[in-house]
Structure formats: C-alpha cells, structure tokens
C-alpha cells in the first residue's frame, strides 16, 4: 500500500497538467486529509501568527518557546514535500518520539499517527531519491588529537603522550570531537604542532636526548591495591602498577619507586616487613625488603597525625622510609613495561577467592600494619647513552642504510618517499620528495644521515598534507555538482572512520591500482579493517562519545554519598562497556542486542558491585546475567554514572540521554527563565518524582518533560554509581511511567522492551550517530533519507553491525561530495 501511495506522489505534479484522473484524486484526497490532520492537531500552536508574534512582557513560556523554535506548519504545502523537506524532517523527528502533540492536547489515534509519519518518511525518501544530495564535507579537515596520536603510531610505530603535546578538541553540538567545522586552527596549535614534530622525530629516529629527563607515573590514591591489578603483573602479586614507558635510546636509566603515603604523609604499611618486586618486561629485576624497622616510638595506632610519635619516628616515616627504592640499570631502547608490585604472602590460585587482606574503609590509611601500596614509579634517563638501539620505529623508518655517501640521496629518497606516502595518504609527487630532500640535506649538513632524516620527518609532521584530511573538487567543475570523491580521499574516509588513523599500505596499494571500489574488494577491505586491532579505535572513539563513556574520567562521586566508590570500580565500568561493545561488534551481533543481551563482562570488583556471587580475581570475564538487573547497556554502571550528578541520580539527565542517544529525539533546550522546581507543596516536602510532576504542570515544561521524566524515572533502581537499589530515602522506588503517546511501562525492563519495540528508531538513531562520526560533519535534513535507507537494508540482515557499517560506507554521502552551491 505504501508503495502505491509513493507512486502517486511521485507523479502527482505531472499528472495535474492533464486534469482529473483517478491517481490525481487519490493524491489530492491524501493531501487534503493530511492538511486537515495538520490543521486539527498542529497548527493550533505552530502557526505564523504565534511564531512571528512580537514578544510581550507577560506572555507564557510556551509562546516564547514556540517563537524560539520557529516551526510553522500553517502555510507549508503538504501536497508537495519537495518544497520544504527540511521542515518535514523536523516533523518526522517529533513524531518519532511521540512528543507531539503535547500531553493534554488532542492527538490522532495511533494508526493514523503512525501512518502519517510513515507517509511523510516515504514521501521525503522519494523526494530525495529524485535528486540525491551527498552534502559537502569540508575541504580541510584537521586531524583531532586522537587521530593525530594514531596517525603517528601507524606512521612511525611509536606511542606518543599526545596530551602533553597538542591540545584536546572540544566536541561539537552532538558530542563528537571529529567535526571538521569545529576543528579550528589557532596559532597555539601551529606552535604545538611544530614542537610536537621536534619531539616525535627525535624519539622516532632515536636521536640522543640533550640530557636526562625524568617522568613520574602516579598511581591514583583511590586505587585499592589489595589484589592483582594488571595482566602485566605476576600471579600471586598484590597491588602495584605496570606502566609502559618509551626508552628513547639504549643506555642507563634509573627506576625509582615511591610508596603510597597516608593523609599525614606517613608511608603506609611500614609497620611490618614487606617485599617489593620490580620488573622489566616481566623479568624480575630486584626484590626490595623494607618495613618493621622504623626507629623511635611510633604514633599510636589509629591516631597517627593526631598524636605524634617520637621525633625520630616522625621524621623517618615522612622523609626516609622509602628512600633509596631505586635501581640503575641498562635498558634497551623502545617501549618497555616496568612493574612494581608486592608478592602476596598467602594466596590461592587465580579465580578462587583470595584471603581477605585489609577490609578497612578507604579513609582509614594510618594503620601501620596495613599493606603498603605503590605511590609512583619514576623513570629517569638516559644517564648514559650506548646508542640509538633497535626500536620498532627505527626498523620502520630506516628501510635502507647507505654504505657510502654516494648512496645517501637514494636511500633518503626511498625512506622519505615511503613515509610521505603514508603520512599524506596518497601517491607522492616529485615535488613532495624534492621538498623533503632539501630538509634532509639541511639536517645532514649539520649531522649525520639520521639527522637528515630526522629533519625531513619534522617537515612531514608539520605539513598540511599530514595535519589535514584534504578533499578537493575536481578541476573546472560547476557549482552544485555531485561527484564521487577520489579513491585516495575515499581510503582516508574509510581509515579515519574505522581506525581513527591513516590508511595502511594495503589500502594505498588498492588506491594506486584503482581497484578499491571494485566489486567485492570494498566489502573484503571493510571486513579486514574491522578485524584489525586498529578498529579498537572505532569502538573507543565512537562508543566513548556516543555513550559519553569518555566522561567517566571526570566524574568524582561524592565520597559521603558513595563511600564504596574507588578507582578500581571506575576502571571496571569503562572496561565492561568497552568489552561488551567490542564483543557485540566483533561477533557481528544485531544492534538490538545492545539492549537485549543477557550477558556482560565483569571482574571481582564489578561483580561485587552488581551483587553477582562467585567471581574472583581482577580478570574480566563474560558472565551470563540470568535473572539479574544487568545485561544490556541499560544496566551498565558506566552509563548510569555518566548520567548522574556526583551525589544523586538525575531522572532528567537520564531521560534526555535516552531520548537523544537511543531514540533519536533530542529535546530542544529549555526556554530561558525556566521556573524553579518546587521543593514543597502545602507544607509537605516533595519527593523528586512529585517535584517533577509539579514542574510538568507548566505546559511549556510538560512538552519535553512528559517524555524525559518517565524514561529517567524508570532507571531509578540504579543509583548514581549504578548500584541496584529497591528503595531510596526509605521509600520504595517507583519506576513506572506513562509516555505522551499513552504507553505505560515499568523499570529498566519496561524501558528496554519499549525501545526494542521500535527497532527502526533505535537502529536509526545509532546509524545517524555513525554517519555523523564517519563524515565528520553535522547531518542535514537531506541526509535523513540516507539514514532510513541504511536502516531498511540492515533490517533485512537482522540489523547486524556489519550491515549498518557497510551501509554507511556505501551510502551516497560517504561515497560522494557536492561542490559549493
């Protein structure tokens, strides 16, 4: 039936010329009926008289809000959607979440409501199909901080501390930090790029540092060090840290370990004897025995800080207890793992519950018989230099070695040509190479062959060809023309989408063979790229931004409200969501499983938090969540934490999160001068639920809160750090809700079913986010038909990740571009 309607619409304009006709009358009657529907339900508010009215002092908030939003429907021609598709896409968006018409206003019955939306969508798709607009990505798209780091890693096989080199990028209005429009360029950035190029080129070629430098890795104070903390640390170890450090050259280095101190700066656990093991790449370097030998009279148990010990003891505990925990040793250049940890005195096999060690509250740190912890690891060096060593980056760069001065130019050409091809992500030109050789020669004239390469490498790293993804219009093309982007540009779009990094040699080879877009080749490449470890970047960046997981780091739950919160839990939250998404994507599950899955990944700390018995050890493992409140994303502590305030939950934040990121209907911003929440009514203190209900009595607030609040309240069983609760403030949790469209539901299960009940909307929302992330630009109204097409195609494949990702890649906006109008 829908197809018939579409057909009618498509030919309506041409048929009109010939007068009366069955098709025409049907189209006319549909248009008339839709016009009547708009007039009856929408135009009462969305009309020009209201929206264009002059602001008056005493007008209602609703009028103000309508004027701000500016949507009028009284004059729009619903008989021809092509006249203003932008407006109709806005209408579709509101119908999607069912927020319009607002509660207490008449609305059409559900079949009519749904059919109008479907008719609008199909009509808009038809309009778009007649003239596909791929949109226009920016010609110069600056790499963001993450992409820069990954590009350097893939170009030079070196992991850089990017945060210490270039500034972080602010996300756009949709929460993505790879939007070309927002990635502006300022003098500070150029300055940082130059500085970063010096540092990176020096590290990569193994240039001798000017002197020793030292780097300290601090272990967070709130990290509980009772258990084995890292896969890089030995079984049977307790606490400590394993850090990855890049040693710039072969030479001597000093490794210095500081122990954790308590709130009055005494070294923790010094009251009795302990051993600490220091390792390099898993090999034990030294065991340091300490403790139990502090001179003088100690401060009494539990009163350290309040009642002093003898001067001798105080001085020792504050200043000398962990003096000299250091080694000087030769280390070979390259990335190495340094571990510092404590052997457990009593331990069970991994996976069995370990003997309980400490058991005091986090704040109780003054007991001298507690266990020590690692406070920091400092690495200083090189104290002496033996040579540049054999690092992954040197192997990557120096693919040839000149045996005599006569071979230098040839070898430099080979090295720089290959580096430039990767860095610029396209075939190199003669002028690229000549330019770089000039820098090689300048560097060579003041040093050796490697110094020449180093300087030319700096030049590569500050080049606009490296720092920007460049997309250029074909020469001599008319304004407004749609065209397929070049294979080089396409390869970059692919790699920055799936890897947040450069295309690799295989992709560049295909570009040079002109075969990247050949039948079957693209699918195989996408599959290969998704299997590659570099695709972790897609999971981290896309998911981290879509679900706000990146915000986890910046939230500090109020210790008074959540004394149990520690860094171990924060790490576990992040890991759970990452591993879950990784599992979903790598096993090519249906996107619906994001919510419906009955499993997740936990370690002992997280299992304890979730109330899952029998999980021991720090390793994360897949656990079936049968009969618990966990499983899909809605039960992830990470999500619940990033949608809460530090000391309490916020149903509004959670409701907004779900609307925006799962249902695709972000609420508009609140009108200015929002009335305050009322705390009391008739002398009675209101609960949050009651206060929000009062807030919704204002019609201007009700429009959005009618959808946001019930969704948020349905998640109230999760507290602000995602722990399950049945009551709050001695009141049982009421997680039931009523949506504007009349749907009722209860609790996270109810919400989940509600979302799964509209798979196209859920998948459509994720697809929108994906397309935005893939293009690095805002989505426009003309992109929405593309999104719907991807979803329709994916639906036939159970909404699998592969079909959605491939759908995005094969979509017109990803494959094509339009010249400026």
């Amino acid at each position, binding site marked *: 039936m829908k197809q018939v309607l579409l057909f009618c619409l498509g030919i309506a304009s041409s048929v009109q010329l010939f007068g009366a006709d069955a098709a025409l009358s049907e189209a006319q009657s549909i248009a008339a009926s839709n016009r009547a529907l708009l007039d009856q339900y929408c135009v009462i508010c969305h009309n020009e008289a209201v929206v264009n009215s002059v602001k008056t002092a005493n007008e209602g908030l609703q009028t103000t809000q309508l004027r701000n939003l500016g949507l009028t429907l009284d004059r729009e021609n619903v008989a021809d959607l092509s006249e203003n598709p932008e407006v109709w896409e806005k209408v579709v968006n509101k119908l999607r979440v069912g927020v319009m018409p607002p509660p207490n206003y008449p609305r059409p019955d559900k079949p009519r409501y749904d059919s109008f939306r479907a008719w609008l969508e199909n009509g808009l798709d038809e309009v778009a199909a007649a003239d596909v607009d791929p949109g226009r990505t920016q010609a110069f798209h600056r790499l963001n901080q993450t992409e820069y780091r990954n590009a350097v890693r893939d170009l030079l096989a070196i992991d850089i501390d990017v945060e210490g080199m270039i500034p972080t990028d602010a996300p756009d209005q949709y929460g993505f930090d790879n*939007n070309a429009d927002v990635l502006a360029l300022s003098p500070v950035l150029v300055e940082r790029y130059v500085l970063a190029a010096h540092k990176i080129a020096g590290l990569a070629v193994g240039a001798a540092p000017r002197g020793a430098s030292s780097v300290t890795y601090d272990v967070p104070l709130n990290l509980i060090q009772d258990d084995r903390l890292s896969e890089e640390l030995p079984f049977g170890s307790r606490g400590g840290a394993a850090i990855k450090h890049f040693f710039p050259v072969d030479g001597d280095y000093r490794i210095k370990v500081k122990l954790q101190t308590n709130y009055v700066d005494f070294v923790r656990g010094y009251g009795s004897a302990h051993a600490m093991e220091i390792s390099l790449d898993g090999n034990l370097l030294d065991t340091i025995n300490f403790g139990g030998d502090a001179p003088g009279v100690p401060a009494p148990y539990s009163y350290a800080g309040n009642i002093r010990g003898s001067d001798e003891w105080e001085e020792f505990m504050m200043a000398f207890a962990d003096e000299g925990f250091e080694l000087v040793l030769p280390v070979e250049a390259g990335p190495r793992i340094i571990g510092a940890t404590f052997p457990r005195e009593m331990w069970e096999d991994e996976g069995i519950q370990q003997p309980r060690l400490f058991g005091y509250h986090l704040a109780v740190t003054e007991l001298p018989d507690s266990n020590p912890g690692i406070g920091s690891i400092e690495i200083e060096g090189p104290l002496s230099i033996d040579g540049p060593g054999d690092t992954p980056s040197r192997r990557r760069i120096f693919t040839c070695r000149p045996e005599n001065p006569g071979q230098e130019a040839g070898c430099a050409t080979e090295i720089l040509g290959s580096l430039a091809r990767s860095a610029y992500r396209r075939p190199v030109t003669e002028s690229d190479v000549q330019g770089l050789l000039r820098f090689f020669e300048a560097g060579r004239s003041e040093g050796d062959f490697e110094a020449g390469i180093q300087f030319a490498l700096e030049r590569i790293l500050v080049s606009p060809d490296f720092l920007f993804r460049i997309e250029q219009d074909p020469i001599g093309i008319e304004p407004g023309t749609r065209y397929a982007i070049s294979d080089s540009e396409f390869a970059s779009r692919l790699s920055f989408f799936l890897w947040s990094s450069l295309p690799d040699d295989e992709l560049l080879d295909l570009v040079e063979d002109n075969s990247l877009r050949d039948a079957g080749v693209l699918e195989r490449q996408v599959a290969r790229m998704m299997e590659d470890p570099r695709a972790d970047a897609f999971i981290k960046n896309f998911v981290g931004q879509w679900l706000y997981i990146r915000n986890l780091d910046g939230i500090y739950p109020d210790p008074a409200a959540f004394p149990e919160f520690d860094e171990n839990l924060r790490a576990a939250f992040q890991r759970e969501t990452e591993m879950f998404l990784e599992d979903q994507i790598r096993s090519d599950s249906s996107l619906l499983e994001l919510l419906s899955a009955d499993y997740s990944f936990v370690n002992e700390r997280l299992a304890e938090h979730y109330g899952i018995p029998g999980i021991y050890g720090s390793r994360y493992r897949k656990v079936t969540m049968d009969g618990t409140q966990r499983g899909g994303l809605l039960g992830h502590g990470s999500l619940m934490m990033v949608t809460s305030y530090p000391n309490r939950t916020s149903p509004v934040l959670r409701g907004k999160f779900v609307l925006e990121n799962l249902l695709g209907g972000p609420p508009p911003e609140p009108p200015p001068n929002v009335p305050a929440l009322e705390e009391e009514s008739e002398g009675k203190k209101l609960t949050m639920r009651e206060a929000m209900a009062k807030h919704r009595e204002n019609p201007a607030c009700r429009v959005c809160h009618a959808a946001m609040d019930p969704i948020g309240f349905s998640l109230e069983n999760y507290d602000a750090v995602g722990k399950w609760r049945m009551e709050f403030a001695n009141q049982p949790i009421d997680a039931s809700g009523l949506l504007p469209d009349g749907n009722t539901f209860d609790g996270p299960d109810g919400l989940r079913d509600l979302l799964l009940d509209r798979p196209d909307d859920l998948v459509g929302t994720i697809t929108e986010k994906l397309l935005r992330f893939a293009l690095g630009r805002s989505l426009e109204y003309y992109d929405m038909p593309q999104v719907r097409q991807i979803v329709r195609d994916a639906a036939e494949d159970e909404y699998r990740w592969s079909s959605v990702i491939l759908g995005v890649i094969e979509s017109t906006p990803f494959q094509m571009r339009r010249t400026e109008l």
Partner: protein
Amino acid sequence: MKLFKKTLPRRTLLRGLGASVALPLLDSMVPALWSASAQVAQPVKRLGVVYVPNGMAMKSWTPTTEGAGFQMTRILAPMAAYRDRMLVLTGLNGVSSNAGVHASASTRFLTGVTPARTESDLRASVSLDQLVARILSQQTQLGSLELALDQSDVFGSCDIGFSCQYTSTISWRDANTPLPMETNPRIVFERLFGDTGTTDPAVRLERIRRDRSLLDSVTQRVSELNRSVGAGDRAKLDQYLDAVRDVERRIQMAEAQSSRELPQVEQPSGIPETYEEHAKLMFDMQVLAYQTDLTRVITFMLGRELSGRTYAEIGVPDSHHPTSHHRDDPVLYEKVTKINEFHTSLLAYYLDRLDATPDGNGSLLDNMLMLYGAGMSDSNQHANTGLPLVLLGGAGGAVKGGRHLRYAEGTPISNLHLTMLDKMGIPLDKMSNSTGHLDLLSSV
C-alpha cells in the same frame, strides 16, 4: 580510564620561583624609554581576564552601598586587601539570548555577542583580549595566553545545540576562530620558554632557525593548495596561514630577543592533583609570563561555563552547575556562595603575587588592568542583566579603584569593553551593541 597520570618531576615551580628566577625583568622591557635622567617610564600596559562559570550568588556579591565607602561583601572580602585597586561595577548587561544560555554567558563575556546557532560552523566575534593582543603583541613574543582549569572534552553535556567550544573558551581570535584554553601548566611553561630544556642562546637560536625553515616551507605548500581550491574552502587555509604567520612573527621576535636572559625556573610537572594547587600554579605561570614580558594579555577560566565540578575540599561535594540552580533555597544558596568565595580567595593569591612583583615605579598589579567576573548574574535564572564584574589593578593610573559604581539600567557590557580598550590605548568607536564609554572609571 587512565590509571597512571604521567608527570614530570614534582618539585613545584612555586617554591623555586622567588629564589631562582634570575630576573631580567622590567629593565630589559623598557630600555628605550628608560633614561639616565630618572624620567619615569611609561608603565607597560597589560591586560588580564579571569572568568568564573555559572553566574554568581549575587546577594553575597553586590555591595549594598555605592561609592568610595562601599561595604565589602562576603564574596569580595577575600580580596579586601586590594580594595584601593578594586572597582566593583554593577548594572552592566550581557546581550540577552533565547538559546544556549550558558554558551552565551561565556561567549558574550569578552565579545559582547551571543554565539550563532548554526549547524555548520562556529561563529561569534573577536574578543576584547584579542583586540588588545593585536596591538600589544607588537612588543612581545606571544600575542596572548589563554588558560583554563577544565579540559574541553566533555561529551554530551554542553549547552544543547551548541558546540562545547562556546562554553570552553572566552577568547575569540576572530569571528570563526575560538582559541583553545590550555590547562596543563607544563605546556604553558613550554610555550613561554620553549622545550629545548636549556637556556643556552646558541641552542635556542639553532631551534629558531629550523622552525623558520619548517614554517616557510609550510607556507609555500599552503599557497600551492590555495591556488587549487575554491573561495569557500580558502577560509580554513587562511586561518592556517594566519596562524602560521603568527608563529613566524613570534619566532622573529624570539630571534631578535635571543640574547635576553631567561629566568632559571623549574618546569612544572604537569597538572597538579588538587584544584587549588592547579589554580595557583596557573596563576604563577601568569605572573611569570607578565614578569618576563613574554606576553601582555592573558585570559583565564577558573572553570568552563556549565562546569559540574565538585568542591568537596570546601565542604561542597555537589556539582557546581546544578547547585547554581539554587531555587533561592538557603542551603543551596550557601553552597554556591561558598564556591564563589573560594574562587575569589584563589584570585587573592594571584593578586598577592602580582602585587609583590615590582614593575616600574610600582607593582605589576598597579600597572595592569584585570577584569574578574562571570557571564551571567543570577545563575538560577540564567540572568544576563547586572553581571558581576570587578576591575582590579590600577592600569598605570588610568583606573581609580576603591569604589563601587552602579550604572544605568540597560548599559551593555560592550561599553565596558570599549572603555577597557581605551584604557589600553586602543580607542574604538563601537564594539558589538555598545552605546558609548563608561564614565567614572578614572575619576571621582
């Protein structure tokens, strides 16, 4: 999550500063003006701006009395020692906005305009500090410094419909170029003194020479690209070229000043653990930047607009932004007041340092002009009227402190911008919606 924060050695700059800075200081800044005839040099003009987010607890900010005998208030009290160089301004309005009330607060603070809500790009207007920097940078290596304490990468919790850029900065180089605010003191240090790890002029000159050749060749490449793209795409390249030229200019300046002695200061280790330490270290960096005359214009955000920072250390473990919607509830109001007070107590540390640093005949504080305040007044209502603003410092005599001034209702903050520009020696006729200059700043 990053379990391990990477830092450089931890000896703080603060301790070493007083003792180990071999100050080339102010003599070298005014050699041309300084003559043996003991003629007093024209004090160097400097501008500082310190911004606080989420409005102010106005009842505890605005003095109840006006003029010279004004009553100190709770929030202003921590700075009471500088009353004589403090000018409290009441009654100035920010541009009102119907959308993005928080994005507007930070954006209008120095630009006088509200952010454009466009789908496709960022747009505001050049900010006060950057107008000043265009002129003052002729004498210094760095045009300006933009500093903050909060990272800008907050996902999904900026003002609805607006990029986080708007809430993360108050500085706009031009209408399309918001300037990122640096949060890491170590990077600020590197920007000031370079990363060569040495003050050896030969090494530094060598680096400068190399940087120049790198940038020259980048400029060439950009010009090549410029010839092959359409007019619309050139904007970004122009932005790039403009930035490159600015860095080149700095390099030239550095080359010219390469014989200048640099202070022996310990490089800060990274971002300190507590907010207070972080703020103080950033204030130290600012004093250092003025003192060495590497820049004369600094903007600083004590928090990004819409910040949800918690202040457990002063007994407010609640998130700032939601708490700032205090609903006039006395408990919440007290918490907001405490946060506001905490911020001015940190500023007082900065004032102490500036006042203790000699400059010409007086101190840095005597000669500079500093604006402190927020982009909205009552946070509960997102009010744009009667912004909390205070001018600090004497601007070399151009501003007379010790007073609380109230301006006629509806006076735009752009009038203050215009007047401040005037005091900095940059007369303009109009900025944004300005209606004229503010009077009384230097008299009565």
